[in-house]
């Protein structure tokens, strides 16, 4: 009876949030509806004895991914309501609804035809719960023995994703647009040094003044940062 109550509430939250994601006019509302769905799924994870995954679901999805979405929405200033009444392609919504209903019907029919067991084949990695252990014990054992190589590969994947994100979101600017905060100070310093060098050139080499000036101008060209 308790499980029924949990399932009913969490399932309703999930479905409501999912509809909210699709039907919200404002992207911020869609992101917040997504949080509702993710929390509902975390509750359903707990109801199915996947406590560790429920915690990870809340931390990673609701805590990191949706926050990242909200950051992008706020940062780019695209949090404006869009008009959903416009349908650029004629009949697209009806076609999408038919396709979606077809996908759901196909999945449910396939499951029902096997008496809700699918193939019923286990992976042979291990049991969900042994005597006196919890899901996290068995999950970590499977991850760090049988799936160790795949687990290490995911770290490489994350590294690639980080590098890719930095490269893509970097703003490439032309050289003349770059503002160097210390440029004026350095230019003053260089001018001072040139003046000193010129005065010394006057003292030690009176005939070579034009040559010394040319040299100092050349050094100025080199040292001024672009």
């Amino acid at each position: 009876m308790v499980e029924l109550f949990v399932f009913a509430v969490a399932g309703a939250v999930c479905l409501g949030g999912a509809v909210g994601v699709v039907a919200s006019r404002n992207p911020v509302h869609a992101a917040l509806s997504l949080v509702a769905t993710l929390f509902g799924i975390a509750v359903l994870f707990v109801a199915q004895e996947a406590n560790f995954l429920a915690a990870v679901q809340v931390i990673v999805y609701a805590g990191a991914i949706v926050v990242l979405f909200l950051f992008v929405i706020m940062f780019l200033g695209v949090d404006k309501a869009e008009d959903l009444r416009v349908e650029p392609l004629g009949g697209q919504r009806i076609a999408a609804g038919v396709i979606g209903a077809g996908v759901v019907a196909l999945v449910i029919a396939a499951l029902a035809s096997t008496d809700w067991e699918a193939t019923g084949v286990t992976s042979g990695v291990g049991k969900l719960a042994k005597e006196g252990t919890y899901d996290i014990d068995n999950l970590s054992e499977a991850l760090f023995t049988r799936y160790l190589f795949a687990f290490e590969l995911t770290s490489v994947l994350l590294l690639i994703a980080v590098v890719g994100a930095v490269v893509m979101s970097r703003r490439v600017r032309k050289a003349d647009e770059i503002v160097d905060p210390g440029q004026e100070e350095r230019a003053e310093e260089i001018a001072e040094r040139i003046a000193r060098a010129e005065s010394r050139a006057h003292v030690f080499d009176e005939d070579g003044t034009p040559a010394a000036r040319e040299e100092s101008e050349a050094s100025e060209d080199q040292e001024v940062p672009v």
Partner: protein
Amino acid sequence: MLAETLHVTPAWYLVLGSLLFGIGAVGLLVRRNPLVMFMCIELMLNAVTLTFVTFSRMLDDIGGQTVVVFVLVVAAAEVVVGLGIIVALLRKRPEATADDLALLEG
């Protein structure tokens, strides 16, 4: 009899998962805002993870939960790269929709 019919079976979770997947698929086809389309993909991924966890309990097998861990990692990496692309796109054209993705060419 009533308690028996109201007993929550794994089938209920599977039906819920397929419904969530369907809603996500419809949203992906209908919406034109690239950010919302991305959220619909997350919705579909979550529907699949719910199914994996359900099968994991149904068959008393830890393999399903292991797959969910990998799905989470891949989803995180996907979101990072995808949002990088969307930021690069929307910075150029803040009102860009899925129809304007030809902007990414060259």
